[in-house]
């Protein structure tokens, strides 16, 4: 590495230096002997080389110094970094512990708050239940009071009714006694009447009897009157009886009311009892609630403890050690602790050993370093001494050189060639350049060192800054994420709304809705619907007018008044006249036809001698003018083919020959008919 190289360079330089130191004695001697310019040159060369070497050594020394310083600083940096990291890790650990503790505490707080809420809820519920119960009680009290009032009034009514009942009963008794007395009187009187009547019958119509009769009659009348009164009284008594009959009902009501009373009193007592019970129950409830809460707490604790127990019991399984009782655990723990202690001791010893070793190593290193430094210092001192010596020598040499230069110049001026000075000057320049370069190199090295130092300090600062930044950014990130989620939700909602609205719009578009801002609906003014509507209107108007007109007509016709000179009336009149005339015509025609038919028939009868009657459809009866009997007639039937056929009649039976001859043989009905007429005529005339 560089150190070795530097060492080697140092060594080489030293060697060269030593050699150089040992040598110049010779060239000095030589120079003393010869005054050749070549020796001077070599001397000069050597002096220059010395200078250069000296400078190089100086720079290298400087460099070595700087290197050493750098290394020291690095070491110190590393140490500082280690310590800082350790401190940072410790603080991080502490932070984590604190955070965990914080969270635990927060969880506990939440649980406690929840419990407090639950308890509050229960309290309110209990209060509400209490209020409800109190209201019930008040209601019940009110009902009880009402019932008491009712009871009092009922009692009063009962008392009044009782008095009434008593009075009525007395009346009834009086009436009964009166009635019985009166019935007895009635019976007696009846008997008396009977006796009296018997007496009147037995004694005959004597005045005394009469008088007694009249007396009796008067008595009877009186008795009758009394009877009537009694009957009235009887009726009254009946009514009274009916009223009295109600008494048992009243008594029943009385009983019922008394029972209700007693029941209500009991219920009142029960109510008070219930009140007390309710209070007792309420108190119990409260106590029970408390016990329940305690129970719950106890259960929770029990659960926790059981869990712990389980965990403790499972410890044996989890750790794989033979643990059955806590003593085993404690033993194990003690063992572990002891082991730990032993291990710690070992660790400490090891650490101490290692530390000692490292210490020793470090010390050895230190000593080494010290020795090295001492060596180096010595070297430096030696080199300083060398340098001083060299400087002195250099001074001497420079003086010598100046002297030589002066001599040379004198020589040069004498010689006047320009052979050596340019070379010398060139070499001078080169040496100066090299010097400058080494100086600049030194400066750069220093600058680099400084830069590295600054970088390290910056890095430390950045490390501290990024920690704080990361926390801030995390918060920002969470906030931003929440914002993003909210926005996404809103966007979805808006999208759904948009979809719904678009669907609605499309439906409306389908149905024919339009956006009045962008579209217009046009149609021709004279379109068929409008025209049809107009026509319809007109029709309706015309119909209405006609209807009113017809109504008026009908009204006028019904009333029978003079018909107005309106067109319809004349039309009706015309129609009526027409009808009448046509009917007349019909009648006349009928008469005419009738007459004509009659004429024709008579003419036929007269001319042919036969009266032709139509009996039924297609049947014709012919009666001759010369018929001997009224009902002698021939019956002809018109067949389907139009031919006439003679039907059998009594008269036709007598004309069998003629039928055979004229109809069957000759097949002529007129001949037959004329033969029949001739025959009848001949018979008539002969007779």
């Amino acid at each position, binding site marked *: 590495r560089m150190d070795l190289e530097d060492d080697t360079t140092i060594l080489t330089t030293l060697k060269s230096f030593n050699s150089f130191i040992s040598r110049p004695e010779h060239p000095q001697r030589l120079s003393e002997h010869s005054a050749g310019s070549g020796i001077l040159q070599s001397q000069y060369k050597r002096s220059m080389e010395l200078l250069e070497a000296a400078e190089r050594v100086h720079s290298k020394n400087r460099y070595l110094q700087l290197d050493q310083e750098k290394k020291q600083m690095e070491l110190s940096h590393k140490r500082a970094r280690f310590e800082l990291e350790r401190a940072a890790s410790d603080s991080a650990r502490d932070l984590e512990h604190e955070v965990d503790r914080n969270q635990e505490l927060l969880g506990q707080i939440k649980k406690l708050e929840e419990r407090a809420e639950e308890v509050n809820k229960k309290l309110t519920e209990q209060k509400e239940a209490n209020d409800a119960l109190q209201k019930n009680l008040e209601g019940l009290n009110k009902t009880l009071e009402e019932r008491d009032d009712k009871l009092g009034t009922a009692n009063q009514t009962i008392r009044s009714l009782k008095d009434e009942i008593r009075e009525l009963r007395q009346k009834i008794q009086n009436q009964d006694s009166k009635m019985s007395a009166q019935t007895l009187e009635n019976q007696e009187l009846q008997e008396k009447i009977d006796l009296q009547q018997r007496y009147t019958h037995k004694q005959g119509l004597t005045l005394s009897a009469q008088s007694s009769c009249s007396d009796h009659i008067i008595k009877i009348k009186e008795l009758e009157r009394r009877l009537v009164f009694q009957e009235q009284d009887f009726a009254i008594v009946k009514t009274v009886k009916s009223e009295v009959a109600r008494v048992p009902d009243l008594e029943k009501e009385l009983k019922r009311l008394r029972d209700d009373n007693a029941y209500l009193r009991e219920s009142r007592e029960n109510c008070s009892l219930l009140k007390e019970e309710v209070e007792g129950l309420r108190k119990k409830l409260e106590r029970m609630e408390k016990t329940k809460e305690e129970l719950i707490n106890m259960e929770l604790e029990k659960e926790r403890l059981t869990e712990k127990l389980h965990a403790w019991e499972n410890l044996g399984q989890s750790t794989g050690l033979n643990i059955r009782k806590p003593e085993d655990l404690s033993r194990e723990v003690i063992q572990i602790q002891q082991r730990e202690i032993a291990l710690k001791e070992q660790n400490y010893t090891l650490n101490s050993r290692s530390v000692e070793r490292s210490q020793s190593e470090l010390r050895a290193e230190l000593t080494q370093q010290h020795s090295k430094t001492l060596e180096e210092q010595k070297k430096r001192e030696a080199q300083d001494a060398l340098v001083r010596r060299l400087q002195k020598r250099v001074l001497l040499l420079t003086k010598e050189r100046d002297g030589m230069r002066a001599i040379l110049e004198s020589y040069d001026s004498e010689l006047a060639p320009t052979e050596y000075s340019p070379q010398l000057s060139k070499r001078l320049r080169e040496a100066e350049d090299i010097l400058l370069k080494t100086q600049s190199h030194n400066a750069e090295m220093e600058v680099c060192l400084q830069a590295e130092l600054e970088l390290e300090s910056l890095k430390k600062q950045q490390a501290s800054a990024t920690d704080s930044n990361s926390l801030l950014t995390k918060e920002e990130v969470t906030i931003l994420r929440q914002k993003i989620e909210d926005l996404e939700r809103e966007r979805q909602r808006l999208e759904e709304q948009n979809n719904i609205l678009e669907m609605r719009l499309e439906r409306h578009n389908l*149905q024919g809705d*339009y956006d009045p*801002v*962008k579209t*217009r609906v*046009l149609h021709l003014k*004279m379109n068929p*619907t409008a025209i049809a*509507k107009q026509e319809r209107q007109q029709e309706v108007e015309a119909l209405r007018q006609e209807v009113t007109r017809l109504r008026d007509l009908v009204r006028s016709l019904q009333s029978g008044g003079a018909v107005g000179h309106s067109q319809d009336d004349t039309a009706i009149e015309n129609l009526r006249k027409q009808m009448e005339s046509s009917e007349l015509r019909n009648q006349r025609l009928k008469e005419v036809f009738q007459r004509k038919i009659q004429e024709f028939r008579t003419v036929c009868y007269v001319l042919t001698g036969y009266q032709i009657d139509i009996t039924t459809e297609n049947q014709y009866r012919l009666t001759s003018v010369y018929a001997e009997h009224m009902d002698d007639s021939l019956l002809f039937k018109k067949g389907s083919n139009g031919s006439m056929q003679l039907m059998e009649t009594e008269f036709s039976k007598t004309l069998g020959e003629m039928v055979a001859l004229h109809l069957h043989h000759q097949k002529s009905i007129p001949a037959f008919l004329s033969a029949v007429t001739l025959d009848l005529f001949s018979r008539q005339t002969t007779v």
Partner: protein
Amino acid sequence: VCAWHPCPSTETALGSSDNLEHRRKDRQVRLAAFGINSILYQRGIYPPETFTRVTHYDLSLLLTTDPKLKSYLTNVVSQLKEWLFECTVQKLVLVITCLETNEVLERWQFDIECDKSAKESSAPREKSIKTIQHEIRSVIRQITATVTFLPLLETPCAFDLLVYTDKDLVVPDKWEESGPQTIDQPEEVRLHSFTTSIHKVNSMVAYKKTESA
């Protein structure tokens, strides 16, 4: 006898206008006229004896002979042709109103989507007769098929043609603005849509629900 321009069997021999666009509009407008006529016939707005069969594009189609109706249809259709050419028409609606109650019973709506960019394109898409026939047949077949489910119009009815246009249009002389004349709680049935070279027509019919159904 019809009031339209004479149209022989082949498309190329049209004498009314040389411009292809006009020919296209003519055809579309004629389609609309055939459709309206067939609706009027099928729904019985006018008595069937007032319709005659006429041959166009080798198809036998029904057109009305009632002179008033014919003049009304020519007015509407000529104006519609102009507007179609300018692509300002959005919908064409045929509304059937009951005269007794003044309620709208049926509403035939044709949404026209006009491709305005294609208006200027001069790519001459000559349509063969078969495609024209196919279009007309499909329109008329659909209208006829709706008779199966549309409720009977038992009361006397009249119809009206409404055109939905852009708002910034100049309203011509004989036209006026009217309401959309929608049906209260309608039943809606979408029919096939068909496309011509630059228009796409969606058709649907809405009718009033009958209480007995």
